[in-house]
């Protein structure tokens, strides 16, 4: 396959690749228990396809190809599927491909024995999930979009509930499915408003129809889209399914959902608000910005007090989605104020952060999978000291935690820096009060970043550092080479984007060019100065060189000054010689200050033992206030209405027949 061929027919090639995914999924079905075929052949092949998808998307973005469209001969009569590849979908396909490659190769090792579900079936669900996400990104009419969107929700539901014999997992899966469907209804209604009376459901027709929409209808469509995609993305207060579903799912599935699926919601939101809608209002920007910032800080606070490592990462996903939506909100705000260059900067920050998050969050979820397989524990209170037993995983997790904490020279820093840069221009927004309040958002963002770093210190410190809290942890081992390749791939991605941010910013520039007609100035490959070099600039290489130099000098100094005076003695024991591993700082202890400071956010239930208790036990439960104030009343009302309807269920066949008989008579009288 030569380069010109890829450049010429990217859409057709993508279709072939998606079909191959489906074929791979079906290939594992005849021998569902044959883990060998699935692990050694199908998943690695799927990873190769991910790579190919990423390559095609990258080439498409970098060559600045014009959008490509095609009509598929499937679908209903007179309602064929339309697909289209443009810069926006290509960018998210790039995310799908890059993160998907790492996750697939990791899954090859991880799903050898299956996780509750047989490996072959797992492979089918997994590859259908991948293919449907790719189709969501390629869809060019509301019909195919909804079909792919629902396929994505269903396949991921089955993946989440692969351990369906456990009641909590079934419950989490049901909550996820319910939220996914309610979200899908909102999206469907949004498309219904967007067609603007033309009754044409291709995106192309909608682009024309939306220019005649009244401001009220446009706002309705926008709010429905925010609701529907926000439910999938996990914006607060629509986030409740996320912290339930992620711990329930097998780790590679959590990685896929958090790393890629949440991004499809970002994609859909961008598609509707920037591509399909012609008009935007600055109030929308304020709304998205507020929701994004609130989600970011909320996610970070909740992540800080979790003691289950996957739940912690799930809340961290909410935080990162909040950051992405903050960027989008800023972009809308700037764009409606005719500050197009700054809008491009904010959007670029959001897109780069979406890519970054897909890399480091997948990476972290995969490491929790490795830890879970090696130790059997998910609770932070039972882990510890794994850096000695699992040096591979520990090293790679360190890269992921540094990246997610937003430390240079890793990729998390780049996007958060870009976003903070764009916040610096908000005083130029020509709306009174808005230009005073929005800059405060930068402070919230900074607080979020600091909390995220705190969370990651807790995550890494409790899992990998210190002493093992359980005796069984001494048998933990690093995972197989397939899993290591997957982890390494994602870690390299984090480092590469951190050092050469242009790797992510050039593709993002294609998207901002398409949506806003404006790109952030990119001077050289090694040096980024988004607006003007004299204002702010960043070079990952120089920073890396500085860090390495400092480490080297320190090392040399220590060697020179302290050499030969090294002694190995037991660590200071606080004057108390009988220490056990259980006396280390725990996850709960680490989160305690946050729990105190942000007590208003939580509902805390605590059982404190009495002084004369012989077997004292300390138990604490933290709950989301939103669940009680928003969701439980809805659930109760639904139950009440259902109870009212159940009066009809008398159990007697005669009554049932009488009901249909009376309905028939009434209808006949109606005809009369």
């Amino acid at each position, binding site marked *: 396959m030569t380069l010109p061929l890829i450049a010429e027919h990217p859409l057709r090639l993508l279709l072939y690749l998606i079909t191959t995914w489906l074929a791979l999924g079906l290939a594992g079905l005849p021998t569902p228990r044959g883990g060998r075929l699935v692990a050694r052949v199908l998943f690695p092949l799927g990873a190769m396809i991910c790579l190919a998808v990423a390559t095609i998307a990258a080439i498409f973005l970098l060559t600045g190809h014009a959008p490509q469209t095609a009509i598929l001969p499937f679908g209903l009569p007179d309602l064929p599927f339309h697909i289209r590849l443009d810069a926006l979908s290509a960018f998210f396909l790039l995310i799908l491909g890059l993160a998907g490659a790492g996750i697939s190769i990791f899954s090859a090792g991880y799903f050898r024995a299956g996780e509750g579900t047989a490996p072959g079936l797992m492979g089918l669900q997994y590859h259908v999930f991948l293919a449907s996400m790719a189709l969501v990104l390629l869809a060019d009419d509301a019909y195919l979009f909804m079909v792919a969107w629902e396929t994505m929700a269903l396949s991921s539901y089955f993946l989440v509930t692969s351990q369906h014999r456990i009641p909590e997992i079934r419950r989490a899966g049901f909550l996820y499915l319910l939220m996914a469907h309610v979200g899908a209804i909102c999206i469907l209604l949004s498309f219904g408003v967007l067609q603007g009376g033309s009754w044409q459901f291709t995106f192309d027709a909608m682009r024309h129809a939306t220019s005649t929409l009244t401001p009220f209808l446009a706002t309705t469509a926008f709010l429905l889209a925010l609701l529907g995609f926000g439910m999938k993305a996990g914006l607060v207060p629509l986030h409740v399914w996320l912290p339930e579903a992620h711990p329930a799912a097998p780790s590679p599935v959590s990685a896929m959902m958090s790393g890629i699926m949440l991004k499809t919601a970002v994609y859909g939101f961008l598609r509707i608000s920037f591509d399909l809608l012609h008009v935007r209002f600055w109030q929308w920007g304020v709304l998205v910005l507020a929701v994004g910032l609130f989600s970011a800080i909320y996610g970070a606070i909740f992540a800080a007090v979790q003691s289950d490592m996957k739940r912690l990462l799930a809340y961290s996903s909410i935080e990162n989605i909040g950051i992405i939506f903050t960027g989008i909100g800023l972009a809308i705000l700037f764009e409606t104020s005719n500050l197009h260059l700054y809008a491009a900067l904010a959007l670029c920050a959001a897109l780069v952060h979406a890519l970054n998050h897909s890399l480091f969050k997948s990476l972290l979820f995969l490491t929790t999978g490795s830890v879970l397989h090696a130790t059997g524990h998910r609770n932070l209170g039972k882990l510890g000291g794994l850096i000695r037993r699992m040096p591979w995983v520990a090293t790679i997790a360190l890269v992921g935690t540094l990246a997610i904490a937003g430390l240079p020279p890793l990729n998390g820093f780049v996007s958060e820096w870009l976003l903070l840069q764009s916040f610096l221009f908000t005083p130029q927004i020509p709306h009174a009060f808005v230009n005073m309040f929005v800059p405060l958002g930068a402070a919230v963002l900074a607080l979020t970043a600091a909390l995220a770093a705190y969370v990651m210190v807790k995550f890494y410190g409790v899992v990998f550092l210190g002493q093992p809290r359980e005796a069984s942890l001494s048998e933990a081992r690093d995972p197989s080479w397939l899993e290591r390749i997957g982890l390494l791939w994602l870690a390299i991605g984090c480092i590469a984007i951190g050092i050469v941010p242009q790797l992510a910013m050039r593709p993002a520039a294609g998207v901002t060019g398409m949506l806003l007609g404006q790109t952030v100035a990119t001077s050289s490959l090694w040096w980024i100065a988004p607006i003007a070099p004299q204002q702010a600039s960043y070079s990952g290489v120089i920073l890396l060189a500085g860090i390495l130099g400092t480490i080297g000098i320190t090392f040399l100094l220590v060697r020179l000054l302290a050499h030969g005076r090294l002694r190995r003695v037991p660590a200071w024991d606080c004057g108390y010689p009988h220490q056990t591993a259980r006396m280390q700082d725990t996850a709960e202890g680490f989160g305690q200050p946050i729990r105190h400071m942000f007590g208003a956010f939580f509902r805390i239930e605590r059982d404190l033992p009495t002084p004369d208790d012989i077997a004292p036990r300390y138990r604490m439960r933290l709950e989301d206030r939103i669940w009680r104030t928003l969701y439980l009343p809805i659930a109760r009302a639904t139950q009440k209405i259902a109870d009212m309807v159940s009066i009809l*269920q*008398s*159990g*007697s*066949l*005669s009554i049932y*027949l*009488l009901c249909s*008989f009376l309905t*028939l*008579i009434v209808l*006949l009288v109606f*005809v*009369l």
Partner: protein
Amino acid sequence: MPYTVPILNLLAACLLLISFAMLSRRRTQRLVNLFAWQGAILFLSTCLVAHSSGLHELYYSAALTLLLKVIALPLILHRLINRLGAQWDSETVVNIPLTMLAGLVLVIFAFGLAQPISMMATTITRNMLGIALAVILLSFLMMITRRKAVTQVIGFLAMENGLFFAATSATYGMPMVVELGIALDVLVGVFILGLFFFQIREQFESLDLRNMENLKED
């Protein structure tokens, strides 16, 4: 043939009479016999309509009716009843005179309903539409008032007879494909219900549907 319409009217009246008879009967085997008679009348009237209208397709429907509703289904039902020992239906939900009165009201309602429709129809049989509707409603009423599973199935089949009669009288029958489909549905339905009878009896040791009220969730 000059007497076609009067004969058809006579047959239709017989159909209605049989429906009333079914409402009043309590012995299950009698009900099956009445059902078979209903089928026979349907066969005759369809043949007559086919002859007078010159539509040869209707002969096939008539043959199908004869085969299925006069011979096959009654045989199956008789065997089922004997094997299940369900010769007697228990007390009806509403007593029989009251049911007959309700039936009368239904017939009047059906005739009133059919009047505007039969104005539009162009067939010679259009006056029978009211009777066909009445047969459907009466069969439905029978299903409501009975308690045994077997009688309910007979009511269901009688309702199908009424539908068939309505189709022949309003539009000279349905397309052949549809008719074949319905015939197959009825046959399969009876087989499945037959299986269910045994399941129900095994579960509750009786075919009385009152037992099934325990199934509902509280």
